[in-house]
């Protein structure tokens, strides 16, 4: 393996004195998509936010080997006062493009995720949930990042829409050549999108294990995906606690 795109070394974090994740080690290679799964409240999102630099780890190190990252959040997080196009262009501007080139890049990026050109001048309030999330993906792609964090981006969408969004991500990751940390609690989603899957300890005490997923993302048939997730859930001890829910721990 060449130098990793992202390496987490013994990363720990605490909120108000309560340790939420501890001693996490994880490496993601160049252009590799790793899905991070675990039960709700185990600290997956916290880990992604630390890796992306949104919060400082209490202990441990985050080594970023990539040049530019972006993120798709669970909610679209669009600026309500800006149109769809402006929301995407904003990030292109942040990456140093001129106003005109930023708008051109934004238009191109929205086209890539199948956003209708006639809706570009609409404000987020005028768009449906799926359209908003498309804009959020377009925004994450616009500056050509070589690493993208996905923080349970499609949890709030219905099954069909989720499927479409996953295809968009798979398609973009193949043409855009970026690596990604994809946080999710949906095993089928992980199996479709990632080339490796990491399972987090139910209470954040490290990564319990990793599994390679055979075949290329996007090339796996529904049958294979079903068999794989069934195998994980019933025969693989690593996944025993993935569907445990303790809502008291969910912050």
């Amino acid at each position: 393996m060449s130098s990793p795109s992202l390496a987490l070394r013994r990363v720990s974090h605490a909120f108000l004195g309560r340790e939420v994740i501890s001693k996490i080690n994880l490496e993601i290679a160049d252009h590799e998509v790793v899905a991070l799964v675990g039960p709700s409240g185990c600290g997956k999102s916290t880990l992604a936010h630390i890796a992306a630099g949104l919060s400082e780890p209490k202990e441990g190190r985050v080594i970023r080997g990539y040049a530019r990252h972006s993120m798709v959040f669970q909610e679209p997080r669009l600026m309500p006062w800006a149109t769809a196009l402006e929301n995407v262009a904003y990030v292109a501007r942040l990456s140093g493009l001129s106003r005109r080139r930023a708008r051109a890049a934004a238009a191109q990026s929205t086209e890539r995720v199948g956003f209708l050109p006639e809706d570009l001048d609409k404000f987020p309030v005028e768009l449906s949930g799926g359209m908003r999330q498309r804009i959020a993906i377009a925004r994450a792609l616009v500056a050509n990042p070589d690493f993208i964090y996905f923080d349970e981006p499609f949890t709030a969408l219905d099954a069909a829409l989720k499927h479409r969004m996953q295809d968009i991500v798979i398609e973009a990751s193949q043409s855009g050549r970026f690596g990604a940390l994809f946080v999710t609690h949906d095993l089928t989603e992980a199996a479709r999108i990632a080339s490796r899957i990491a399972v987090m300890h139910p209470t954040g005490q490290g990564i319990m294990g990793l599994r390679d997923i055979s075949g290329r993302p996007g090339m796996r048939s529904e049958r294979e995906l079903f068999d794989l997730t069934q195998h994980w859930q019933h025969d693989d001890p690593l996944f025993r606690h993935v569907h445990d829910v303790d809502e008291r721990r969910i912050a």
Partner: protein
Amino acid sequence: MTGLLDRLGRSARFLWGGWSGLAALALFAALWQAGHEAYGDFILPAPLATLRTALNILGSPENWAIFIATMRRALIGFALSALIGGFAGLIAGYSPATMRLARPLLTVILGVPPIAWLVLALIWFGATDGMVIVTIFVGVVPLVFAGTAEGIATRDRGLDAMAEVFGATRLRRFWSVGFRQMLAHLFPALLLGLASSIKVAVMIEVLSSVGGIGNELAKARQYMDVTQALAWIGIAVAGLIAVEYALVHPVRAEVERWREAARPWGIKR
């Protein structure tokens, strides 16, 4: 080009909306007329007579000077409060410790009636422009301060994090995300502050002899001239409306275009 057309369209829509305003005013005038017919000229002069008196008043340049004197004081007081209150509110919004210190202070300042400040300001500054401005300032600053601080403190931190993850510097985040969210709270506070500024200015002028519209009102009271009093009141209100619609509303309409889009009715693109 489309941007310009868009803007023109929005202005036209805004002007068209004036009909409803006119209808409301006509209804008000009708009620007023009814009152006039019930109580007679001495208690409540007819709205048209009042309008004629007001136009008469505005016919002479000296009266314009009186009007401008009041508006100038009100606007200077308002501008100072908006600047200083806005800036202090910003700091308090970003720093919870400052906010905790400022809140009780605000309660105290808001609890003191403007009339009490007037007495103090009269003693400290005498009957001058400065006295009027200080009194307005003390009355309006807490409003703007609270609006700004609230706007910053209740901002959507998710958007902050979004901008941060995409590499926006602290300053950039403030301009592009924090400031825009603050405006939503700031505009109502500014409108309230502007109206209070003019009200307080007139009130002070009634109570102290510093000229301006309030002084004319005091004179009208001495002569028991209700028509004159009502005409001056109308002029003060017209001044407020003029400032509001010439200054605050156009800026607000531009900044909050998306709220228009959020409405379930109206013309959608």
